[in-house]
């Protein structure tokens, strides 16, 4: 167990690398030691402003040279699994950004290696740490909604209204379009809240993009008997920020959750909740964080990971749970291509 602040390295220095590097640098539990990114010149500003920081173009060299306690992996999606596997070999706990890989098969060796070594690991599905979704999880787990029957879930953001540039729009690097990129947050939330999905009907459609989906729809049947649909797009108007919404109808009540609020309706009072509507708005649920850079959910996620590294406790959003997200994503693509439903139950 390390003594003193954890020594942190970051692999990949784009927007998410900058964010995690900042949080790791701002928290008392950790110190930012090194950053690796192969893009020529991207680390020059750091060389200039942070002379104490070690920078590398080759992450393997960083892992070899630096004595680190934890690593954040924020490279493009297709590099996640192999990079994480290198961390496993080095015995280095890691948090890898979502989605875990471009294809589910790419992350299976990683999941197996992690299971063998029980290395502390986390995947950046940070929406679980947003106040409203944390509350929704409490309510669903309390059972007050009764048997869950019907689900509607949506994810929209106004982002892409023309051909996109870069690796995100090449499925070989990103795994696909909106479904796997931003909407993997929604699928992760659904699995976390409602358990495994057993059957998927999917339909995806490119419109602005040439090779990846801009619109995705799916009907999910959960093992619990819950079923319903999901709709996602990054090419809809009037959503200046990424908007997630989950609405579930249960035998004794219903629940709607967005980033703004949690709306619970119960036929009769149950447990700590009254009958009729109970609405939790963001100010009701707000809890301050040590340092907020880009949203409290990122701080909570990174603190949870770093504390897990310090104590050896497991993190809930890990490569195992993220593999389930990949499988659902692939089932949607497969179903869309074949025009048939896809089973996710073991044969």
């Amino acid at each position, binding site marked *: 167990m390390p003594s003193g602040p954890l020594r942190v390295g970051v692999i990949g220095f784009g927007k998410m690398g900058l964010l995690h590097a900042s949080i790791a640098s701002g928290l008392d539990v950790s110190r930012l030691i090194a950053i690796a990114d192969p893009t020529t*010149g991207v680390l*020059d500003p750091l060389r200039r402003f942070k002379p104490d920081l070690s920078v590398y173009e080759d992450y393997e060299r960083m892992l070899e040279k630096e004595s680190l306690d934890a690593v954040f992996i924020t490279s493009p999606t297709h590099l996640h699994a192999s990079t994480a596997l290198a961390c496993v070999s080095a015995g280095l706990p890691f948090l890898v950004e979502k989605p875990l890989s471009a294809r589910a098969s790419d992350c299976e060796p990683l999941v197996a290696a992690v299971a063998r070594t029980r290395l502390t690991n986390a995947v950046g599905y940070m929406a679980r740490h947003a106040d409203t979704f944390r509350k929704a999880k409490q309510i669903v787990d309390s059972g007050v909604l009764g048997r869950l029957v019907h689900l509607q879930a949506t994810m929209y953001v106004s982002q892409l209204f023309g051909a996109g540039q*870069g690796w*995100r729009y090449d499925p070989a690097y990103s795994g696909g379009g909106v479904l796997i990129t931003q909407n993997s947050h929604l699928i992760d939330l659904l699995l976390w809240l409602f358990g495994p999905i057993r059957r998927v009907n999917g339909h995806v459609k490119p419109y602005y993009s040439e090779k990846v989906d801009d619109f995705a729809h799916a009907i999910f049947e959960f093992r619990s008997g819950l079923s319903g649909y999901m709709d996602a797009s990054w090419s809809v108007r009037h959503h200046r920020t990424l908007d997630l919404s989950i609405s579930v109808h249960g035998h004794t009540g219903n629940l709607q959750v967005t980033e*703004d609020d949690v709306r619970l309706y119960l036929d009769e009072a149950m447990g700590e909740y009254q009958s009729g509507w109970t609405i939790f708005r963001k100010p009701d649920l707000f809890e301050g964080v040590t340092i*907020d850079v880009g949203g409290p959910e990122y701080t909570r996620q990174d603190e949870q990971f770093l504390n897990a590294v310090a104590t050896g406790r497991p993190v809930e959003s890990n490569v195992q749970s993220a593999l389930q997200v990949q499988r659902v994503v692939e089932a949607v693509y497969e179903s869309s291509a074949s025009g048939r439903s896809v089973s996710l139950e073991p044969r």
Partner: protein
Amino acid sequence: MAMGTLDPIVLGHNSFFGVNHLSREQGRQRDAVFEDVTRIVDMMRTAASLDVAAMMMSTHPRAALVAAAVRRDPELRERWTFYPLLPYITKYIRQSNEKGLVNVVLDQLKQAGWSQGLGMVARSGLGFLTKDYRRILTTLIDLELAPFQSLRVGTVFLHDVLTDLALALDLPELLALHVEAVRNRFDARGGFATKNLPLLVDRLRRYGFERPAILAQVNKAGFGMNPSRSRCEQTLQRTDLEVMAMGTLASGYLRPVEAFEYVFAQPAVQSIVVSVSTPEHAAETFGAAQAAAARQRV
């Protein structure tokens, strides 16, 4: 409340630009209403009739249209002071999700006529960005502030995402550069928006910034106050800083009278920024704020 250089009541831009931190749905509805810039200008006239003639303005694309309308109107131009908040960060986050952070910066520079610089990227990578970082950052700040040219500018606040990044990474140079660029180009004061008030204030003192202007969430509900309301209240006891309070109503969660009493009772708070969406709403909100400010001044 100490007397200072910030206007005590500043009209917020949130409802004009579709921002609502409590309800995105309501944000979208307001966005549709204020798509017509003449409605924003009408709201400014209402505010001026209530003795509020200062406005916060992010560098949202709509800001340029508002600024142009003000420039054309001698009465508005004469009377109003602007508090720009830059950059319009949502745009950059969306663009960087779309094409990556580096391309966002390069595209901005291209917009500013930096074809020479872009040629250098092709030849020698991004290294040139740091060699000439002062000029590049100044160019980016100029580009953002261009719409406010020839208008009266009070304090130019750096967006909290950038302030807090500089804070977390311990980069005083970036904060100093903002102050310097705004002073040199606009003869205005540079200030900082933050989500980490106590930490920023401690750090700015250590960095040697004198009497900084800070834009931060201050409200009785403690909403958005990191690491806690009580730690923020301790910082707000100090008189060697000037705070413009935002989120004072916790996005409509609190009633104006009690909300403003609380905010103006904090010694460091000189000013509040508050959004209004109708003339009735403006009269009620500004009336309550002016009463609370006056009581503290006595």
